[in-house]
C-alpha cells in the first residue's frame, strides 16, 4: 500500500503512464499482433533520444537558464567526422569512437568557455557554438553519406536476445548516469548547484568545476549519440541532429525533471523517450496527419508541466 503510494509520488510516473496508454492504444489496432515489433522499434529509436536526453538532463539540473542548444550540431559533426575517419574499415572503429568523444569534449569546453569567460547566457552561448560546429560539419565532408564499417552497421541494427543493441547501450549509459546522479559526490554537487548556487558555494562545492564537467558530459553524450545514429542509419547526414534539439528538451521536461533545476531522474527520460516515439507511431497508425501530431505533442507538454510543475519555489 505505502509502496504504491510512494510510487505514485515519483516524478517520472506520469510519463510512464502516458507511455503505457499510448502503447496499449497502438497495439490494440492490430489486436495485439504488433506487440513485439512495436516494442522493439520503440526501444530502438527511443535509445537515441535517451542518450541525448540524459546529457541535456544533467545540464538542466544545473538550474534555471542552463540549457545546451548545441546538441544537434554536435551530433552531426561527431557522426560525419567519425564516419569519414573510419572510412568503412572495421579496424578503425575505435579511433572513430575516440574522435567522436574528442569532438564532444571540444564542444563542451567551448560552450563553458563562452558561458564563463564571456559571461554569455548559456542559451546564446550554446547557440553561437552550434553555428560554428554545424559549419565545421558541412566543411568536413560536404554532405556525402559515407557508410559505416560493416561491423558497426550490423551491431547497431541488430538485437541481442530480442533487445535492440542500441537500447542495451542506452541502458548501460543510463545506469552509468543513474549511478553518477544517485551515488556519487558529483551527482550530489550538481543537484545542490541546481537548487541554490550560493548555498552550494557556501557548502564548499567547486561550482565552476562541476558545471564545466556537466557541459562537457552533455556534449560527449551528444557526440556518442551522433556516432551511433550515423552507424545505425547507414551514414551521417548534415541534418541528422535537427530533430533532437526540441526532443532532448522535451524528454527531460516530460520525464519529470524540474526545469528550475536540482531535481532530475533517469527513469523519466526512458518513459518520455518511449512516449515521444510511440505517440507518433500511434497517430500514424490511426492515420492522423502531421498537424494534429504536432498540436497533440505541444498540448501534452503543457499539460504535464501544469500537472507537475506549478508553484514550485523559485520556478521560472
Amino acid at each position, binding site marked *: 500500500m505505502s509502496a504504491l503510494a510512494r510510487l505514485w509520488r515519483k516524478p517520472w510516473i506520469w510519463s510512464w503512464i502516458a507511455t503505457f496508454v499510448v502503447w496499449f492504444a497502438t497495439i490494440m489496432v492490430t489486436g495485439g499482433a504488433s506487440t513485439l515489433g512495436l516494442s522493439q522499434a520503440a526501444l530502438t*529509436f527511443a535509445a537515441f533520444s535517451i542518450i541525448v536526453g540524459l546529457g541535456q538532463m544533467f545540464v538542466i539540473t544545473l538550474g534555471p537558464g542552463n540549457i545546451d542548444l548545441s546538441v544537434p550540431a554536435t551530433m552531426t559533426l561527431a557522426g560525419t567526422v567519425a564516419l569519414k575517419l573510419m572510412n568503412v574499415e572495421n579496424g578503425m572503429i575505435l579511433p572513430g569512437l575516440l574522435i567522436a568523444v574528442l569532438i564532444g569534449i571540444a564542444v563542451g569546453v567551448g560552450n563553458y568557455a563562452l558561458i564563463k569567460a564571456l559571461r554569455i547566457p548559456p542559451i546564446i552561448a550554446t547557440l553561437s557554438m552550434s553555428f560554428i560546429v554545424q559549419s565545421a560539419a558541412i566543411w568536413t565532408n560536404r554532405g556525402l553519406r559515407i557508410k559505416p564499417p560493416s561491423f558497426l552497421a550490423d551491431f547497431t541494427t541488430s538485437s541481442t536476445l530480442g533487445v535492440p543493441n542500441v537500447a542495451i547501450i542506452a541502458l548501460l549509459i543510463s545506469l552509468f548516469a543513474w549511478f553518477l546522479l544517485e551515488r556519487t559526490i558529483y551527482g550530489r554537487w550538481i543537484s545542490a548547484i541546481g537548487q541554490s548556487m550560493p548555498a552550494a558555494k557556501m557548502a564548499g562545492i567547486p561550482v565552476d568545476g562541476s558545471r564545466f564537467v556537466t557541459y562537457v558530459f552533455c556534449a560527449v553524450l551528444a557526440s556518442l549519440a551522433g556516432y551511433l545514429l550515423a552507424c545505425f542509419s547507414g551514414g551521417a547526414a548534415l541534418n541528422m541532429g535537427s530533430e533532437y534539439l526540441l526532443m532532448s528538451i522535451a524528454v527531460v521536461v516530460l520525464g519529470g525533471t524540474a526545469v528550475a533545476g536540482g531535481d532530475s531522474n533517469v527513469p523519466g527520460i526512458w518513459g518520455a523517450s518511449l512516449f515521444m516515439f510511440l505517440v507518433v507511431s500511434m497517430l*500514424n497508425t490511426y492515420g492522423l496527419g502531421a498537424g494534429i501530431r504536432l498540436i497533440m505533442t505541444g498540448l501534452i507538454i503543457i499539460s504535464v508541466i501544469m500537472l507537475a510543475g506549478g508553484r514550485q519555489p523559485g520556478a521560472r
Partner: protein
Amino acid sequence: DTSGKKIALSNNYAGNSWRQAMLTSWNKVTGEAVKAGVVAAADAFTTAENQATEQAAQIQNMILQGYDAIVLNAASPTALNGAVKEACDAGITVVSFDGIVTEPCAWRIAVDFKEMGRSEVEYLSKKLPQGGNLLEIRGLAGVFVDDEISAGIHEGVKQFPQFKIVGSVHGDWAQDVAQKAVAGILPSLPEIHGVVTQGGDGYGAAQAIAAAKRPMPVIIMGNREDELKWWKEQKDAIGYETMSVSIAPGVSTLAFWVAQQILDGKEVKKDLVVPFLRIDQDNLEQNLANTQAGGVANVEYSQEDAIKVIEAAK
C-alpha cells in the same frame, strides 16, 4: 554573345547528397564554361538554413551585386515571388528549376512531380498485377514537392484500384527519419507489397523492414548511391526487382545553359519540362558505376542538350 554576362546560382539547402551533387555538377560545368569564355562568371550561393526568408534576402543581394541572370532552386514555390519580381524589375533573368517559383516573369524548368508519383504506382501495377498493400513515405510536411508527389501517388492508386495505401508516414527525405517512422508504423500494418517513396528514403525503409524481419516488399528507390548499392546486393542475392526514380541533380546545369541562351537573346518558352532520371533493372549496374560513393545518380547537360530541350518546347 554572353561573354560579359554574370550568372548566379541561388540554392536554398546543401544538407543532403542530392544538393551536394547538384553543386558539384554546377561547379564542373560552369567552371568549364567560364574558362571557355562563354560567360564571365557563374557563382554559387547557398543559404545557411532552408528558409524562404533567407533565400529572398539572398536574391536581393544578388540584385545588388549586378548579376545578369539568377538560376534558382527555390525553398518555396510562392514565398520567393516578391524577391523574384524585384529581380525581374531590375532586368534580371530568373530561371528556376527543381524547386520552381510561380512568379510569371521567371522561367521554370519543371519536373512533373505528380507524374513521378503516378509512375511509381504504374510500375508497381506491372510488377504486381494482382495489386496489394502500399506504404507511402512522404517528405517534409508543409513543403510543395511533398504535396505534389503525394498527390501523384494518390492519383495512381485511383487509376490502379487494386492497390491500397495502408499507411503513410513523413520521412522528411532523410534516411534516419524515414527509418524511424517506418519502424514505428510497421508493426501495426498488414503485409506490405510495395513502398512508394519520394527519394532519399528508400534505404531507410529497407533497413526498417529488414529489422522487423518482414518479407521485403518492392521499394521504389530514389537514385541515391546507398539505395542502388543495396538494390544491387539484393538483386545478386535473391533477384530482387524494383525501379528507381528521381530528378537528376545535374538539372542545375541545364538551367545554367537555358539562362545563357536567354541572355543570348534566344526566344525561350517560360515553361520547360525535363524528364526525371529513371533507373531500371537492366541499367542498374551502369548507373551504379557512374555514381559517386555517397552521392546520387546524375546526368549533366551540355549547351546542345539545352538547345534541344528549348526547341522541343516550341
